[in-house]
């Protein structure tokens, strides 16, 4: 017996055995993404649900297990006058003196009685206690081109210091014009509740924004539901539309509706954005829709 040859054979045999044992251990721990049968079933179920809802998926579903905690936030307090000066300086620079600011305690518009209106020059700022602030610009024809393009809108936002934590999100278009959306971010996590919508309408562009002051993350982290489950839960409730729509964005972030509160906790959500501009939020802990 050639001992050397026998050792070689045994080495190969045990090497193959150890590779097999490692694979089995890896499968046991559930880390393996190679579950062809389970994955296939899930895909079939999703495809069927999408078909029934009249939706197509034009983006990849995030994979992997994520953990998240509640995020504690509070309303952002600001001085309307300072805000106006910031916008004015970003628009005009320091070369033009800011106009006089006139304050009307209540908006005359029906349904907006709880909001305060500030007039400066030809423009107005509308603020409410627990909602977004709205800047309406009324430019003369020759001035309107100042913030008419997307790039100019982005530059304007970047010049305003209290909007430094906003990043471009997406754009929509309709017959009136384009609307550019920004979202707030905190430590790299999207905070969808905070937003800027920049309506690039000729001569009457407007900026609507809502910002949250972040206190911090809660201590306890927990596992969020997989994106596939969130999609299924969304499709169960989706009422559909006349046209065939598509899902263009599917991402994890934080969302809350606006509250008139001192501070509150907000949950992580899966955000589902359709090509027609509709946005849905699914609570990433419970799978219930967030309204």
């Amino acid at each position: 017996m050639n001992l050397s040859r026998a050792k070689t054979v045994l080495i190969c045999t045990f090497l193959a055995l150890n590779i097999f044992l490692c694979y089995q251990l890896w499968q046991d721990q559930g880390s393996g993404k190679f579950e062809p049968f389970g994955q296939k079933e899930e895909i079939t179920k999703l495809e069927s649900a999408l078909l029934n809802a009249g939706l197509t998926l034009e983006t990849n579903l995030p994979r992997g297990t994520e953990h998240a905690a509640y995020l504690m936030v509070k309303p952002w307090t600001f001085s309307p006058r300072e805000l106006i000066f910031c916008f004015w300086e970003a628009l005009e620079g320091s070369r033009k003196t800011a106009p006089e600011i006139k304050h009307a305690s209540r908006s005359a518009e029906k349904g907006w009685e709880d909001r305060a209106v500030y007039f400066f020059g030809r423009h107005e700022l509308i603020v409410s206690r627990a909602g977004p602030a709205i800047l309406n610009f009324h430019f003369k024809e020759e001035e309107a081109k100042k913030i008419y393009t997307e790039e100019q809108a982005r530059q304007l936002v970047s010049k305003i210091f209290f909007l430094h934590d906003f990043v471009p999100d997406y754009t929509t278009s309709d017959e009136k014009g384009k609307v550019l959306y920004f979202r707030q971010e905190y430590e790299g996590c999207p905070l969808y509740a905070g937003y800027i919508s920049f309506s690039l309408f000729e001569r009457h562009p407007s900026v609507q924004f809502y910002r949250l002051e972040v206190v911090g993350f809660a201590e306890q982290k927990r596992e969020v539901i997989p994106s596939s489950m969130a999609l299924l839960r969304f499709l169960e409730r989706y009422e559909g539309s006349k046209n065939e729509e598509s899902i263009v964005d599917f991402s994890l972030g934080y969302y809350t509706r606006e509250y008139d509160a001192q501070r509150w906790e907000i949950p992580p959500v899966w955000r589902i954005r359709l090509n027609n501009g509709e946005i849905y939020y699914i609570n990433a802990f419970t799978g219930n829709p967030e309204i």
Partner: protein
Amino acid sequence: MMEKIKSGVLAFLIILSMGLTYRLWFGAPPLEEGIKPKYEDAYFTAPLSLEEIIAPAEIIFWKEEEKEKEHVFRRGEKEFVRLLAAGTSVLKRADKQILSRINDSEEEALLKTASSKITFNFSPVLPLNFLVPGATALDVHRADIILEERYYHIILEGEDKFAGRIFMNLNEQLLNNLVPQRSSLHHCLSGVLTLDLAELTCRELQEKGREIIPQGTGLPADEAKKQGQAEGKISAVNPAKGNEKEETSFSLIVANNSKLFVPVEEMQAGEILLKKENVDKEQLVRAFFFDPSMARRIEERDGAVFFTDGEKGLRIYPSGLVEYTAPKLERVFTPVSYSTALQKGAEYLGLYGGWLPGIYLVRAEGQSEGYRLFWETFYEGLPIRGERVGCEMAINEQGVLFYQRNFYQFIEEVGARQAFRPFEEALCRAALIYKKTFPGSEGILLGIEPVYYLSSGGKGTVKATPAWSVSISGMDTIYLHWQTLESL
């Protein structure tokens, strides 16, 4: 050299395969030490037995020697509790075997030979099987124990009337327990009440056409009024002048289905100090949300804290008021029976804050989405009323749709006890207010009772004032200060 390396590699692979086999066979070691789960009692108070869920609104005692006089005892009184315990032990004997249907004339015949009778008026009605398991399906609104020499009758009235005769095997102790130990004479108002707003009297027009004497004085009405004026008590009511006699008369019709008992004897009461019940907020949140970590917390500007998981919400106000809503359950309609609603309501009350002594179920309303149950706290026979005081629960088969809880607990009496102003004066005062609001209309009297009224709630201790509560159709309930008869 090569052979040594190969031997080393082979030995390593053998040991590795043994290690991997061991891991695969016995599993990985635990990542952390498990801890024994900690169990805690979910209920604030232990669930009540079925017979404790509904107590009668009043217990009325009558004996043949006193003819038309009736002694009435209300929830929260010591005598009420004692009589209820004794009566319940007797009523439990009313099973199917002894009960048979009777009509009104048969009932009258039974009363003719009775030496005494004790009546339990249930409002809300009591499912008989709460008292007697397996009994006939009957929602009882009145239960009588009619005592004779050698036996007693039980009469149960719901949609039908049943009676049963049980030969006397009550021991002397139990018999004594069925007799009140103190007097509490009341009169039952009925028919049309003609109020003289000038004289502050009330004439009850029935077959007898009697005039009700003001309580506690033993004097005829005129003399009582004069005495009251001399003591400066009646002036607050502003009696009208004599030549406007027609305008000073007012008629009140007592609602047909109402049994309005008013005290004939003088009733004493004083202001009391109450404190907001102290409910463990963390335990309350855990009771509503099985996993509190799923409920996010919102601190509102008014100091209230709101917990929600997106499907249901719990709000705890700074005053201690607790409010819970589960809108999703409202959309799911599953009918629930009356007795199931009562049992579930009692269970949920124990789970969501507790069913404390002195709390009684006072009303149960059937609605499209289930039942709405109301609880109040009683002190010495008088309910504690006020804005959003008490507990309200909307319930269906799925669970609780709405829950509002705001209970106060008695600390001590403050000030001296004084007699309530006569009920006739309270009625006249209420009538004056009604006349101003609805001139020319005749009112229907829905209720009159003495209560404690909490004029303003708060976080710490609050004061409750004795008052007359008067309800006339078309108008909100009026609360009149027990001494001055001013609106509270």
